């Protein structure tokens, strides 16, 4: 009874908050709206909200929720809208006025003045997830196209990263000449210790994941395109193994089984870390005024599971976690932090100089007002700085053989799901989407 009352109260509060903020769903609203009772409302609200339809992250968030709802065709369309935004960015004029404006804004005013075009891991994963859409529609050829795009997209990211490293070195030198040390991470920065984590150090790079390459190998094999494209399935598998040796545990064959079929189980679970901008404020000029260093940061992932177990009458296996979005996000941040730190010091210095001038002209109160104006202004800009918050945090793949018409059991933490295999097919691909413990969806396709 109390539980029911609590549920009703929670739903009233949730829907009221959606109505009050009918135009834009905040990160927190998206997170709380993934539970089964609220999911359809959240999806409908997000789909009807056009205020952010020029934003890369908006289409990615929508595409992910549409996929989690089994609406694969709409999800493909949303991913295509995200691609169009990124393509436009990647193909801009060599000297683009928009890029210059964004660069100046983020260099002098606030990190939030930048337009977010995703990090390397997001740009590759969007193609991987879209390949899953095509897979679930039985279109293996188009799924293979998406996997090729996944690899192609990495090239621009590498170029962009190289440019950023050069720019960071330039900024560091500028800051050094002005007497600022940008080599040390501020103590108050919440992710300071996490970025030194051993798992993050162990990642080969910040944009290639073994999940995408393993899936690519399976898709190219099933679509029959591997031989025609220079054994591309094998090449993908080698890349996956180089990124994570645990990929070898993905494939299980049982030679004596009959009548058997191939079963591929793909699990996408949890919600990736959401980006935020962290302000570290400190006083200047005897405490009368203040300035702040603003650095990109991440929240912790949500609703994720830590164990997937698959059992049939013949086998029991625990597929490895191959997609580790949180680690890739932190790795990207770790790689970019020196540049971000240099830029944030330049911004802090700009604001401090302006506050000093205000203080000189209008006294301490003038300086304080100037500090507050900068702070509020940048906080407003930072609030719209968002990433692909609905990206899955984990991905698991298992490909094994099983007897036709038998039952497969899958355990996701404490939740058990089962399905019966078909009796007349060569193979099946099962996609399990775990958004919350009560919002789990299972889709499949046969071939």
């Amino acid at each position, binding site marked *: 009874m109390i539980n029911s009352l609590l549920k009703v109260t929670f739903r009233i509060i949730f829907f009221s908050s959606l109505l009050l903020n009918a135009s834009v769903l905040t990160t927190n609203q998206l997170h709380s709206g993934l539970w089964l009772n609220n999911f359809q409302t959240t999806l409908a609200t997000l789909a009807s909200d056009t205020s952010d339809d020029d934003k890369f992250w908006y289409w990615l968030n929508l595409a992910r929720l549409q996929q989690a709802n089994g609406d694969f065709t709409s999800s493909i369309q949303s991913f295509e809208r995200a691609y169009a935004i990124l393509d436009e960015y990647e*193909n*801009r*004029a*060599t*000297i683009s*006025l928009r890029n210059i404006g964004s660069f100046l804004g983020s260099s002098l005013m606030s990190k939030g003045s930048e337009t977010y075009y995703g990090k390397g891991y997001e740009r590759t994963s969007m193609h991987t997830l879209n390949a899953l859409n095509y897979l679930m529609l039985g279109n293996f050829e*188009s799924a293979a*196209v998406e996997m090729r795009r996944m690899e192609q997209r990495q090239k*621009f990211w590498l170029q962009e990263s190289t440019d950023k490293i050069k720019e960071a070195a330039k900024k560091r030198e500028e800051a050094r000449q002005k007497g600022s040390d940008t080599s040390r991470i501020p103590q108050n920065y919440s992710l300071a210790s996490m970025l030194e984590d051993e798992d993050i150090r162990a990642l080969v790079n910040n944009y290639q994941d073994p999940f995408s390459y393993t899936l690519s190998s399976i898709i190219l094999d099933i679509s029959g395109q591997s031989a025609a494209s220079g054994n591309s399935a094998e090449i993908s598998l080698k890349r996956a193994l180089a990124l994570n040796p645990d990929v070898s545990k993905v494939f299980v064959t049982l030679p004596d089984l009959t009548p058997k079929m191939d079963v591929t189980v793909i699990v996408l679970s949890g919600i990736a870390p959401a980006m935020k901008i962290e302000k570290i404020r400190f006083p200047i000029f005897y405490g009368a005024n203040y300035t702040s260093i603003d650095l990109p940061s991440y929240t912790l992932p949500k609703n994720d599971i830590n164990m997937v177990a698959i059992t049939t009458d013949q086998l029991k296996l625990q597929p490895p976690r191959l997609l580790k979005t949180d680690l890739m996000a932190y790795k990207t941040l770790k790689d970019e932090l020196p540049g971000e730190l240099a830029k944030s010091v330049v911004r802090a210095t700009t604001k401090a100089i302006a506050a000093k001038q205000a203080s000189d002209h209008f006294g301490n109160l003038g300086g304080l007002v100037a500090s507050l104006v900068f702070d509020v202004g940048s906080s407003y800009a930072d609030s719209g700085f968002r990433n692909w918050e609905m990206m899955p945090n984990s991905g698991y793949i298992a490909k094994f053989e099983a007897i036709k018409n038998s039952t497969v059991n899958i355990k996701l933490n404490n939740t058990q799901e089962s399905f019966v295999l078909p009796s007349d097919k060569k193979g099946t691909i099962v996609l399990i989407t775990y958004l919350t413990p009560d919002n789990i969806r299972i889709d499949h396709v046969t071939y």
Partner: protein
Amino acid sequence: MKTITNISLSITLAVILFSGCAPKGGAGMVGYQSDVKYGDAKAVETVTADFGSTDLQTTAESLTQSLLESRYIAKAPQPPKVRLRAVNNLTYEHIDTKAITDKIRIKLLKSGQVRFLADNANLNQVKDEREFTESATANKENKAMADSDYIITGNVRSIKKANDDVKDVYYNVSLELVSPQSGEILWADEKEIRKVTSKSSVGW
């Protein structure tokens, strides 16, 4: 003077208001002026560097002509029976390869030099063709439908390269004429397309 100005302003405002209420067209508005116009279906299309209508047309034209000139077709005592299999899309784009095979089929049929068997576009390997023929041979009615003299298969590939200023896309469309009995490739040809797009130096 002030009155004339007021009248002019009123007339301008009225024109703007009325033009705002004008119908925008719809069903049955035959001849209504709009942005829709017919274009030349054969005109060169360069909207983007993606595989487009011009590529489809030139590919089909060139490969069909080459195939018709091959001795297996040109010197055949009677038009051979051909089955057109799917052309694999191995590019970075969602190309409708059925559009390519359909266009080639139409051109070959119009030539009168080949006969086509109904195809199953989802089977794209010679092995499938042989299995199909073997299983159908047991049934005489099916045998005529399954027995093809040749099958045509193919691939579309692309290579993309880009630097800061230039994007280069290379397409290669290849077709093969294969004997389903022996698996021998009797004829093959390709059509190459290269598209280069340059970034503008300065822009929005």
